[in-house]
């Protein structure tokens, strides 16, 4: 039963609107069918598991799932790069995340994200000006012309990766993001092989850059990761590689969906779009509500129990695979009143859109700032924007969910 719903959620045909399926799923807060994963779909249960030290993110703790009918993602990481901190437990997770945070956020770099504001504003302006220059306002692809290039350029500048190499690592990033996607119809060996190769190639590419930065450091994060010597010492080359690969992919494949889902949602709610046009500060609550309503990361499919864990009356046995359905928790009526309503005026909005606990989104402050700037500028500059396709065409990925293209038209673009 649940398995059937889970398959439907993953099935591409339901990508545009998985929310009715989540609603069905929530009738059983913790469910399992056959040998499939334990699926947790309600807010409070997800929230508590995100803070539960009996839950591991390290795939090594997973019991073999050879007959898992969903063909859980193979651990492709082991053979090439060591796992990034996303797939590690403390203390290794904590040490690597702490070292990565040192050049990125408080307490050691409290101004880094804030200081990027002008630069981000310039990028947004440039991309929208670029749309004007095409002269084609009757068909704009908001993904290819704006929502994709913006965060990619930002993450490249932050890391110190040359923007002109983008076509090369774009392919690897796409492949690796796709490998997160539990696609039941893909050939698992091909799937695993492809992402292994991509990971290897991305690793080699980054290794070259890191080598350069070691010799001649700049003020970018690659240099800082490569030359770090804080209280935790230095990262090994392999650690620096898997960490920078993680940041590059995460910066690549998530914010694009936040911005695109955001514009799609605003175009479906013209009253809110108008309010944002009148008051750019409304971008802050709008982005929070978007993270609840259309989260760019829909579910976390790679957690494991270290002990038997009782959740909502169900005992999840030790070594089981646990999927946390963040997007479903965000629409749980036990937590949010009228959850299917997009309402930026919500007072109480502790959503799960960026996760919670030790693995909560590392880039959250940057993603928020990017989305706030992008949406408020789009709202301000596009005259009478409208959707040309609704729903638009989505990406394959069920985990990192968002439109592949978002064709819109507008009457003009304000300076």
């Amino acid at each position, binding site marked *: 039963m649940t398995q059937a719903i889970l398959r439907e959620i993953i099935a591409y045909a339901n990508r545009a609107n998985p929310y009715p399926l989540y609603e069905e799923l929530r009738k059983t807060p913790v469910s399992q069918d056959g040998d499939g994963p334990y699926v947790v779909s309600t807010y409070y249960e997800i*929230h*508590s598991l995100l*803070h*539960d*030290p*009996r*839950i*591991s993110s*390290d795939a090594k703790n997973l019991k073999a799932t050879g007959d898992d009918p969903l063909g859980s993602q193979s651990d492709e990481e082991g053979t090439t790069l060591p796992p990034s901190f996303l797939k590690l*437990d*403390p*203390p290794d997770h*904590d040490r690597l995340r702490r070292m990565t945070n040192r050049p990125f956020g408080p307490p050691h770099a409290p101004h880094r994200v804030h200081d990027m504001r002008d630069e981000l504003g310039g990028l947004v302006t440039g991309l929208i000006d670029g749309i004007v220059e095409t002269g084609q306002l009757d068909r704009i692809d908001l993904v290819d012309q704006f929502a994709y290039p913006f965060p990619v350029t930002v993450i490249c500048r932050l890391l110190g990766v040359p923007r002109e190499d983008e076509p090369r690592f774009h392919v690897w990033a796409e492949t690796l993001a796709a490998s997160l996607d539990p696609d039941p119809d893909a050939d698992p060996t091909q799937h695993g092989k492809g992402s292994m190769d991509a990971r290897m190639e991305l690793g080699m590419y980054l290794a070259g850059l890191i080598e350069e930065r070691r010799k001649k450091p700049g003020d970018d994060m690659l240099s800082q990761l490569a030359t770090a010597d804080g209280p935790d010492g230095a990262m090994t080359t392999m650690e620096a590689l898997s960490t920078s690969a993680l940041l590059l992919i995460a910066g690549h494949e998530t914010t694009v969906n936040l911005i695109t889902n955001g514009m799609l949602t605003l175009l479906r709610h013209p009253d809110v779009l108008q309010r944002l046009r009148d008051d750019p500060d409304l971008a802050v609550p709008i982005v929070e509500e978007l993270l609840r309503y259309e989260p760019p990361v829909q579910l976390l499919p790679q957690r494991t129990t*270290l*002990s*038997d*864990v009782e959740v909502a009356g169900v005992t999840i046995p030790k070594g089981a695979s646990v999927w946390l359905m963040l997007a479903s928790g965000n629409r749980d009526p036990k937590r949010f009143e009228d959850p299917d309503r997009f309402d930026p005026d919500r007072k109480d909005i502790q959503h799960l859109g960026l996760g919670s*606990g*030790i693995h*909560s989104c590392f880039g959250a402050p940057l993603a928020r700032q990017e989305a706030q700037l992008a949406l408020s500028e789009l709202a301000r500059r596009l005259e009478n924007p409208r959707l040309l396709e609704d729903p638009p065409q989505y990406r394959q990925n069920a985990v990192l969910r968002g439109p592949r293209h978002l064709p819109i038209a507008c009457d003009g673009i304000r300076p």
Partner: protein
Amino acid sequence: MRDGSLEHLKREGRIVVVGASLAGLRAAETMREKGFAGSLTMIGDEPYEPYDRPPLSKQVLLGNAVADHTALPRRRAIDADWRLGVPATGLDMAARRVRLGNGDEVEYDRLLIATGVRARPWPNAEEGALQGVFVLRTRDDGEGLQRALAAGPRRVLVIGAGFTGSEIASACRERGLDVTVAERGEAPLVGALGGVIGEVAAGMHRENGVDLRTGVMVTSLESDPSGRVRAAHLSDGSTVEAEVVVVSLGAQRNTEWLAGSGLGAGPRGIACDAGCRAFDVRGIVTDDIYVAGDVARSPHALFGYQFLSLEHWGNAVAQADTAAHNMLSESTDRRPHLWVPAFWSSQFGVNIKSVGVPPMGTEIMITQGSLAERRFAAVYGYQGRMIAAVTFDNCRWLPFYEQQIESTAPFPPPFSTVDRRSDGIKPLPADFPDPSVPTHGPTITLSGYSPADRKMTFTPGR
């Protein structure tokens, strides 16, 4: 009150809040939020609008924030009659009147008492008044101490190594000042977190260059001819020369103004029921007087319904909200204050957080991380159940432990966790000092079952 009197109260009643700090302000905001349209009077003995105290022992002492920039953010306008800089000096329960220090009287239909605590002064008043001797509780205290530290004293002496004392010592070291800490217990934080954690805290002091002296008392302070403190004499016969002395011996509850009023108030605070209604001295609950924040002691279901007093920021906010709600509700709509004690501290670059009541614990187990690295989560056990938890630089796990405590989970915990190390193989004795021996004063106090607090003799402090 089904006779419309509640509606009348909401429309044109008079609510008086004594205590214009965190709890008082948050309660006032909640009352307005709930549609209270009558008159609201805020009485505070300090001349300032409500401000935040946690930064006073942290950012303010480091000079990173200015003491007069710590005003609490407002959730909404409260349209109150502010009577600041005037202490309340008496309460006439029968006439429903609060007397003020300037002779004024203010009448109320509902009263909220949130007078909090003050710093326990140095027991010898003459020595306590010497130049260079400080306590730290108020904005003025913070400002004065910050200036004294900025002047670059040759040595600072901190008396008492509880949370505030430890934070002050940490700030001194961060400013590059030599500092001696004298603690009567065997380790810093020992009253609040026990000996196992106290030892970790002692390591933090010493590694950061604090001259930590434990198991000693300061017996007297000595001044130079100009009336400035110059040295302290310790019970072990030693002398510490210091130009600045900070007395950090815990807090005293501001209840003296209620002496003789008939309210159940004493040195341990004002007893109230789970709905924040104050008890009178006969143990009968009042209908029109409510209590919130540090000055309250209220029974807690999780801890055997003993009266619990908490000097915690989060408790003040939560209890104020509940009190305000209940003051404006029919009896069946009232809510209990079921806050699980929680607090945090920041010292020597380490974030310390705790939930539950650690001093109730007899055993402790390090469930995650390691004591040696000073990054860990530990749980306290009492009669086979989990009663509290503490984290050092590991606070993101705390909601899990809070849930375990709330559901009276067993101790020692029967499950494995991420990051379990050799420290976490078996429980250790938690090693709390005998509670009858005064140390720096824990910020959580269980004080028995009597609402009238009769076992303690009431003595006016000033």
